């Protein structure tokens, strides 16, 4: 079944650690996105990619980085985690660029930095 997977589901990590949040999709979508969402708050776009070797920053400034070496894989990395990075991170993909293409979201990674 085509889907989008995020691991880990939950992560508690100490300040200063390097972490990578994994996102993979089996739908062959070219477009992939990372959103950040605090509890009860809006989703904010932090990174997006329109294809392999293409990445852009979103509206919300983020200290994270992303890479897109394979179509199906779009990992997000924090070089040095801080408590301010505590949030839920949601990965999504779409078949094409533009609002007419619906987004498919993963279940998210809830990150807590202590």
């Amino acid at each position: 079944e085509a889907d989008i997977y995020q691991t880990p589901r939950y992560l508690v990590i100490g300040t200063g650690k390097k972490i990578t949040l994994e996102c993979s999709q089996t739908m062959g979508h070219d477009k992939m996105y990372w959103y950040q969402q605090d509890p009860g708050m809006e989703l904010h776009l932090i990174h997006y990619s329109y294809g392999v070797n293409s990445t852009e920053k979103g509206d919300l400034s983020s200290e994270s980085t992303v890479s897109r070496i394979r179509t199906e894989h779009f990992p997000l990395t924090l070089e040095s985690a801080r408590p301010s990075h505590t949030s839920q991170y949601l990965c999504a993909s779409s078949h094409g660029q533009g609002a007419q293409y619906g987004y498919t979201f993963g279940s998210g990674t809830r990150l807590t930095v202590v």
Partner: protein
Amino acid sequence: LAKTTQPISMDSYEGQEVNITCSHNNIATNDYITWYQQFPSQGPRFIIQGYKTKVTNEVASLFIPADRKSSTLSLPRVSLSDTAVYYCLVGTSSGSARQLTFGSGTQLTVLP
């Protein structure tokens, strides 16, 4: 960018029809209207999308008046499991991902 306005919250009872209206006064000619549903600790899920008039699928209906300055998501006979946040998005075809903003959404609570 077409900004959207939705009620912050709504309550309903099981078995009732729920209508959530979204205002988008600055909608452009090429903009589509999309609704998503989000449960706690989950990513949003696509519900329905439309451009004009009425769209219906197995989950919901979307009503869009001729001027397209608003849209109404209709959920028939809601159940407790429909309790979620519902987002209205407006964005153009071939537009950048930056254009699609989720906003605060509408928290729908279905009561027994």
